[in-house]
């Protein structure tokens, strides 16, 4: 219980920090006035601009943490991550197609759909390659994932070079690739809340079976599980979560890898507490990273994906080194 109170308190503090941070820092008094209904430009900017963005960043982070926890659970590997397994790269390729190729459906629909198709397709491809190569263990999966991610990234760059012109700004796609939460409208934020809640609910349905799968394939079968069917289902669920995160936040590295680790240290490895804890940690991490992205080099904004990679990479190496030492 103490851990949950702590996580919630840190999340609240991160939200306050996130709303205050920017090239023009807001004081607690500014924040209070803005929430209290003050109509000045500064207050309106805080309410209509920063608060939705911070909340969106938190929700994208929650999705990334959740996606990472599902992937690590289903691959039974603490190094599994939406990035390393190609699913985020697949989602980004799908999103790039949606942004650059004229399609018959509106972009608002095409983007999440293609992001999902890309995430799912890439993961299935990685699993397929490692099976054909006869290396279904963690190393085989990760190597296949790295190869697929590299191919997808090259394809994405090719599409960007070949298809962008004056009518389609490369900037839009680039800001996507580098990761970044756009300020959503309140209705878009509502949609994101619903999607995140649905993803959390969906993943909690998998929690007990992820635990059983963690006992190893032989034990899982002897506990009555149809392992290939469950793995396919869980990968599909993970892809939905990753696609939602990528559709709203672009490519944000390391959050999906680090959040479940931190959550595991806080609440243990059982998935019923782990999944929501990973979501909370992911939300905190992305809110803080987004605040740094906005406040570090004013008036410019650093792409969020760069912040998480720069901060997350060494952080993760540190955690790993500590873990290996114990």
């Amino acid at each position, binding site marked *: 219980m103490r851990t949950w109170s702590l996580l919630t308190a840190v999340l609240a503090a991160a939200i306050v920090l996130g709303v205050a941070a920017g090239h023009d820092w807001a004081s607690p008094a500014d924040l209070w006035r803005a929430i209290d209904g003050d109509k000045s430009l500064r207050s309106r900017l805080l309410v209509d601009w920063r608060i939705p963005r911070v909340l969106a960043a938190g929700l994208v982070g929650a999705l990334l943490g959740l996606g990472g926890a599902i992937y690590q659970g289903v691959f039974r590997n603490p190094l599994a991550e939406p990035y390393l397994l190609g699913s985020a790269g697949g989602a980004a390729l799908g999103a790039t197609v949606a942004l650059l190729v004229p399609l018959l459906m509106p972009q608002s629909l095409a983007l999440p759909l293609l992001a999902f198709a890309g995430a799912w397709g890439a993961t299935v491809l990685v699993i397929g390659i490692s099976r054909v190569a006869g290396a279904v263990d963690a190393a085989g999966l990760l190597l296949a994932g790295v190869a697929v991610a590299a191919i997808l990234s090259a394809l994405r760059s090719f599409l960007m070079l070949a298809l962008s012109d004056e009518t389609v700004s490369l900037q839009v796609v680039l800001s996507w690739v580098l990761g970044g939460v756009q300020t959503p409208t309140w209705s878009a934020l509502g949609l994101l809340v619903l999607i995140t809640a649905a993803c959390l609910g969906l993943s909690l349905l998998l929690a007990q079976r992820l635990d059983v799968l963690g*006992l190893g394939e032989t034990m899982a079968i002897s*506990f009555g599980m149809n392992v290939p069917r469950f793995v396919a289902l869980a990968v599909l669920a993970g892809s939905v979560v990753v696609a939602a995160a990528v559709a709203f936040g672009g490519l944000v590295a390391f959050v999906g890898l680090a959040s479940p680790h931190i959550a595991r240290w806080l609440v243990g490895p059982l998935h019923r507490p782990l999944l929501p804890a990973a979501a909370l940690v992911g939300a905190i991490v992305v809110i803080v990273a987004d605040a740094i992205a906005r406040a570090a080099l004013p008036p410019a904004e650093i792409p969020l994906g760069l912040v998480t990679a720069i901060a997350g990479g060494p952080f993760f190496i540190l955690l790993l080194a500590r873990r290996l030492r114990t």
Partner: protein
Amino acid sequence: MTAISADKLVVRRGGATLLDSLSLAAPATGSIAVIGPNGAGKSTLLKVLAGIERPTSGQVRIGDRDLAALTGSERARTIGFLPQHFEPHWDLGVAELVRLGAERSGQPAGEAAQRMSRTFELAGLERRRWSTLSGGERARVLLATVLAVDPPLLLADEPAAALDIGHRLDVIAALAHRGRERLSIVVVHDLDLAFRFFDRVILLDRGRIVAHGSADDLIKDSRLDDVFGVRFERLSTEQGWLLSARR
């Protein structure tokens, strides 16, 4: 009543025949040791009987039903499987592991978990994580996890092979003792333990049953020497026969 039977089981993997038209039948109670040299097909037989691997041909029946036709949860409630090696991917706590075992019954897990905790004396271990347990403690926790649903049929694949002699005796005795009320089929590495603790012994070689019968009869059978490629000296002691092998 026959609890489990196998009819003409064949398992081929990569050109090798691991089980070669093997048939057997076992009653609802009793303890059966499966022995044989390396590569005889003991582990494969157990995995096929447990529904973990599918045979290339042939059928396993649980009671009067085809094993392949059971739902996952029916199979999980009916057959307990103790693997040769068990290393969970996440460092779960003892209570969490036993609870996961108990949950496969589909019933509330708390009561079964408590019962297992008493039976296997886990009270002092419940807050410990798997990685901190000794070999003997792990064996107890694994037994509690697998037996939490009290399955009518227990299949165990040399679960004690890596333990020191004291803990090995405890585990083998517990598995054999279970045969008084349920059916226990155990792959046993240590021939003395197989003949001393189990009612019946199945001798396996190259995917076939070479001999099977009561432990007292089989220990005198010369096929035992042939299959293991040694000459056994059979020493009569107060506790039963002891085997001493020579080339």
